[in-house]
């Protein structure tokens, strides 16, 4: 990590370090959503800029309706920015066709209900779709990558199980495995810890940490878990009411006044010996 301390700026400081080119480059991106063309925008995202590099975990934090999911959808290419640029490995996102995009970016979100039962193995093989042609049947190479993806999330033993028989944590791992089978450069996760107990949450973020460190993934996570984000992410993007307030190291973003104001709750922030901040809910005494 070569991030200069520059806590006051909303521009990502790492853009100026001149090291390896960023994997993800987001420059002055804005977005507005209106019900019709003429009506006033119901929701907008103000100019947001940051870079994300290989091996990094970046957490996107903010209260509900702050624009976290909108930012993630912009990064996934589901919606197009009103202005600004999003580049992945130097190529503008909007210029990638659907399949190429799916080879670079994988999105993990809460899975919709499966209509017909599917085995874990078949589900993970779906991640190989961007590499196939019409009707192509899976090759040995696809099996290899799907098998590796399952192994990376520690779900080898689940391959023959039915998707609808898995527990919440197991299912989350399998969904992650499908995303890894895409061999993406950028891994996006939308509130991945939502349905997990505390053990499951810690296990998941440790796994993400390991994946980012060992496999060159750039991981971006939308989450409500302030302390997990502080502990495991390299950088934090803090959003509030459609504005990007801060981008920086956890210790830079986790300022007591700022967090109290954004989350509208009595919070204390302490910095632990490892340099990572911790948020504590102040009691009513």
């Amino acid at each position, binding site marked *: 990590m070569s991030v200069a301390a520059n806590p006051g700026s909303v521009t990502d400081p790492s853009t100026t370090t001149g090291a390896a080119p960023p994997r993800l480059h987001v420059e002055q991106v804005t977005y507005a959503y209106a019900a019709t063309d003429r009506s006033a925008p119901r929701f907008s995202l103000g100019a947001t800029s940051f870079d994300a590099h290989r091996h990094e975990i970046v957490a996107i934090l903010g209260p509900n309706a702050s624009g976290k999911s909108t930012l993630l959808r912009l990064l996934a290419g589901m919606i197009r920015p009103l202005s600004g640029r999003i580049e992945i490995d130097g190529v503008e996102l909007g210029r990638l066709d659907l399949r190429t995009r799916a080879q670079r970016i994988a999105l993990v979100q809460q899975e919709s209900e*499966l209509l017909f039962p*599917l085995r874990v193995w*078949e589900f993970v093989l779906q991640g190989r779709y961007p590499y196939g042609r019409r009707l192509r049947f899976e090759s040995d190479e696809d099996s290899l990558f799907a098998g590796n993806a399952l192994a990376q999330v520690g779900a080898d033993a689940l391959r023959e199980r039915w998707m609808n028989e898995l527990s919440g944590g197991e299912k989350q791992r399998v969904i992650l495995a499908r995303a890894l089978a895409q061999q993406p450069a950028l891994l996006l996760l939308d509130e991945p810890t939502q349905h997990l107990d505390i053990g499951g949450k810690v296990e998941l973020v440790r796994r993400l940490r390991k994946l980012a460190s060992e496999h060159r993934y750039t991981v971006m996570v939308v989450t409500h878990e302030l302390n997990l984000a502080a502990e495991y992410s390299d950088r934090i993007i803090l959003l509030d009411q459609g504005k990007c307030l801060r981008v920086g190291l956890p210790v830079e973003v986790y300022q007591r006044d700022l967090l109290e104001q954004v989350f509208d709750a009595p919070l204390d922030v302490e910095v632990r010996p490892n340099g990572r901040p911790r948020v504590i809910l102040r009691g009513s005494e």
Partner: protein
Amino acid sequence: MPTLTALRPRGVRMLTPGRVAGICALLCGVLFVAVVISLRMGAFPLSVRDIVFTLASSALGRPEQVPAEFRLVVFGLRLPRIALGILVGVALSTAGAGFQALLRNPLADPYVLGVSSGAALGAILSLIIAPHTPGAIQLAAFAGAAATITVVYFLGRRGGQLDSATLLLAGIAAASFLSAVIMFLMTTLSGRDLRGMAFWLMGDLSSPPPTQNVRGWFGFLFGVLAVGAGAIYLTASDLNLILTGEKEAQHLGVNVHRVKLVVYLCASLLTGLAVSVSGAIGYIGLLVPHVMRMLFGNDYRLLVPTSALGGAIAIVVADTLARTVVAPTELPVGAMTAIAGAPVFIYLMRRRVR
């Protein structure tokens, strides 16, 4: 790299082209047996030897060796009807499998979007306006189906794209409106036309081709069938992903909008084709894909071809029974598929519930 195959999970069978071909060959064999049995059965019984002799001699270009009555029964009566049954079975089952994925609804069948009601309205209008004109009823039925497909398409869009839930509601509304119009028009029909119409609403394979050029007629029908069913088959791996969720499919690189449009148009075309030549034969398009799911799994790369062949087998068998169980009277094949289909459907549904 010998280790690659070892990485495949044990117990999980990968779907390979060979496996698809093998299962299809098996079903083709079953279909062949069903066709031979269907050729044998009827008021004029034929032995397997007679059938083989008739077919082989004609194929070898020596039809004069075959007794005239054999030729009449095989080529004039039974074979065209079997061919029509195969056409309708393939079209309805493929369309049914397509609609189940498109609408993300296991209970979808080819008629759920009102295509058959549109076709029926066309048919009844042709009976009123131009009765006894050869080909008019088929043409009018197809025009009715095409008009319904178009209207439901525009009603079923949301934000410029086909939306499964909106499409389903639009289709159901269109179907019930058209049925009401049909009921009204049926009161104006005379006795004989009314009976013909009732047969047609139930589904019936007995109407002869509307032209003397039987070969050309079937060539045309099977040509359209091949285009529609082929296009649906080409989207099979996309449909697998769309069934897991449209957004997920989009992220994995599927052009969901285009796939849905192709499947909607082709499945509707196949339904319109089937309904214009045979009326609304029920249950095939709903049941056959489900039976194939139970037998061979949910992968559309296998489901589409097996449903097509399964539909052909089901109709050939059902029509043979319809011709023979209460001979010399004939039942409409749609009555047969409903009598057999409803209990099978209830059985499948209860199995799911458990």
